[in-house]
């Protein structure tokens, strides 16, 4: 994963490297990611099994049924696919995943593939709705603060963002819920749709959008602070660069200065940052979905941990990891190309 490198450094490095070298770098980072993915799969097969208790304990939890005899318990375990040593179970999991089979959740009584297909679009919607918000706000405010470091705008914005950064993100989410859904109920408090979805597609889409506003905003606020500080720093560096000073002396200001001289030069940084954001957004969607009772992969995964639902947990992590790693690689490749163009 490429960290945050200043665009100037990148520009120089990019100019020096041969095109073949870049392809090799990208290929190498792809191989790294595939290795990380494999390691994650093993880890997600082993770790949940190290937690106390297993799926069978949850399925057979009862206080009126006599404890099953060891033989019966073994037979039931084998039949449900939990038999054998840890290594055997992990081996079986990996073989199954290699065949492209995500397995079956005994607690939901459904194939993991179907469970994820039902939940992922909702999480995807939240992330897709949040991304333009945190990018737009992050870039706009970051450039505004950084283009004249120490100015009044910078002081106000930086103070405001520091305040926002000091509030834990779940508190911000609850505050949003409290203010806009309960005290002043202009937006729905939870769920992804009203109880009775509208019959017309447009009205239905509108209702889904209304339900997504607060959770997406909570998700966006979680990220906007990070973008603000990175971009403010980068913009502050740019503001002292000769081409900016030069442009200003030629009378270039306002929107054109912000767009052509700052934002455009910050693109590689934004891309590099986006690669990391993908992972944080999926993690943050967990608490957002829980707070807003939103049907997504976060709440599904959380319940899977409590239920020791190995197949679901592993399937969810596998799909998420594949998504995060490939998007992350894509943004890295993009960063590399942008930095090279300079």
């Amino acid at each position: 994963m490429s960290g945050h490198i200043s665009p100037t450094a990148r520009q120089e490095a990019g100019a020096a490297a041969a095109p073949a070298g870049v392809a090799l770098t990208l290929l190498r980072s792809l191989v790294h990611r595939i290795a990380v993915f494999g390691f994650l799969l093993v880890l997600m097969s082993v770790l949940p099994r190290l937690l106390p208790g297993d799926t069978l304990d949850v399925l057979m939890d009862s206080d009126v049924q006599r404890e099953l005899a060891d033989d019966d318990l073994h037979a039931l375990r084998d039949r449900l696919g939990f038999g054998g040593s840890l290594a055997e179970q992990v081996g079986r999991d990996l073989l199954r995943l290699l065949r492209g089979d995500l397995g079956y959740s005994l607690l939901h009584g459904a194939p993991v593939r179907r469970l994820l297909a039902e939940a992922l679009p909702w999480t995807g919607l939240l992330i897709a709705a949040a991304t333009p918000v945190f990018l737009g706000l992050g870039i706009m405010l970051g450039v505004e603060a950084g283009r004249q470091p120490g100015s009044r705008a910078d002081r106000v914005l930086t103070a405001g963002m520091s305040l926002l950064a000091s509030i834990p993100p779940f508190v911000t989410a609850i505050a949003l819920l409290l203010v806009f859904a309960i005290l002043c109920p202009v937006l729905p408090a939870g769920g992804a749709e009203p109880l009775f979805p509208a019959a017309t597609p447009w009205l239905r889409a509108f209702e889904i959008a209304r339900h997504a506003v607060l959770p997406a905003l909570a998700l966006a606020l979680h990220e906007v602070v990070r973008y603000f500080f990175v971009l403010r720093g980068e913009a502050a560096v740019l503001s002292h660069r000769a081409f900016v000073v030069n442009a200003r002396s030629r009378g270039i200001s306002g929107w054109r200065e912000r767009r052509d001289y700052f934002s455009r030069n910050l693109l590689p940084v934004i891309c590099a940052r986006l690669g990391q954001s993908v992972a944080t957004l999926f993690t943050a969607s967990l608490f957002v979905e829980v707070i807003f009772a939103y049907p997504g992969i976060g709440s599904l995964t959380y319940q899977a941990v409590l239920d020791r639902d190995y197949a679901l947990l592993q399937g969810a992590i596998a799909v998420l990891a594949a998504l995060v790693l490939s998007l992350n690689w894509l943004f890295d490749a993009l960063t590399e190309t942008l930095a090279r163009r300079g």
Partner: protein
Amino acid sequence: MGPRLRPAFGVLSLCLAMMAQAPLVSADTADTANPRRLVISNSNTDWGLATPYLQARGGLGYMLTHFVFDNLVGQDRSGALAPELAREWELSDDGLSLDIRLNPEARWHDGTDITSSDVAFTFAYMAQHPHPFISLDNIRGTEILSPDTLRITLARPDAGVLSSVMVGMPILPEHIYRDQDNPRTFSEPRAMIGSGPYRLSSHERAKGRYVFSAVENYYGGVQKYDEVMIAKLQPEAAIQAAANGQVNVISDLPHRLVDYAKEHDLQVQTSPSGHAIKLRFDHSGPFAAVQRRQALAYLLDRDALAAIAYRGGARSASLGYLQDNSAWYAPDSVLRYPHDPDRAAALLRESGWTRDDDGAWQQDDTPVTLRLVTSGREEALAQVIKDQLEAFGLELSVRVMERGALRKQQPGKDYDLILAGGSTLGDPVTILERVFGTRWNNERYRDDGTLRQLAMAQAQSLDPDRRAALLAEFQQLYSRELPAIMLVNVNRTVAHDNGIEPWFFDEGLAIGIPVATHKYMLLED
């Protein structure tokens, strides 16, 4: 802001203004169009599918299965046993055989006749594929006498054969399940062909939404609703939706929202759940001595526990195991243990503990520190218990863990005291497992004396008067020996509009599930 951005902001503000104007739920799709639809809300997540093997753990999953699968014996409005798939039954005088005559009108949802062969198959199938709520240990076998009659033979007389097994066991269609080696992975629509008044017609798992439709020509009566929808909604949102006429019943109203629901013109019904929160013991540790268990009963102020930890959403429990919901509850024979720290101190001294100058309790000159484990759900109660014990000089360390880990805690090795809820509902035959069983959530009482004999005798006593006397004696002895201390009996609350009247059964639904939104509420009287 640059001039080019202004139109974009204009559009954005317009959108926000429109959103603020839109009602919470669009009015044209509201429930008013369909008077035969009932909407029940619940804040829980997925309850699984409505089949005996795919239902989520816990009573609510069972309740959904109960919409779709009928049992041999059902309940009337008062909760008493009533015919369901079995039109009549007769227990032999020795209590070792039960003859059942099936309702000849009863059909599976696919139109197939329900026969005694299905019933015999279900007994055999459930013995092979155990269901967590149904214990078939005492069933020796079944004998098909005719397509509509069946004899069930028992190993020992069982006072609860009707009120636990027959009322609790869903009957499976043989023609669907006979080829299923693993019913837990059998989730095709066929798996949901049952005999009950409703069938599951759609299920949106991610949103926790179920729609049940009435089965045509149901043998057991007329359904009040064509469609029953169960939707996952947080209680606050559910109250708002109910005020708008979109939700009819809120099946799990938290106590804190009772007044809020009433303000929205909802009716509220509360019933003690019979799921007492119990303080259980490591019976081989410091609490092997009965005086110490009794001392704790005198020491813990149960009224204060209910008032502080549950803010009135619970009442102090009876210490004789059975709670006041039970028909077998014998209040006069149960010892009451009024809050009395002096009495507690005397008992602890008698057990060999001493008190130092600061009032702290010691055993052999080392301070006593008790270890209590519990799950997040009972965390507040554990904290109040800790406060009460420490004010008395007993050090208590509390570990709160998630349920999966709690299940694996070993008495003695990991804890002296464990705090968790446990049902006392269902036929009292369940006492044998719940008090003397060895599962993590059983009381694991080891005593082989009179208490166990009483528990066994009542479970086999076919004469109700004799059984009542035995159970009264059991409750008295239980309150003396205290295999566990029943601390509080938590309330269950349901809120509903004027169009429907859900009700709680005193002893719970079927095997003792404290829900008011059962299928009997959905049938015409």
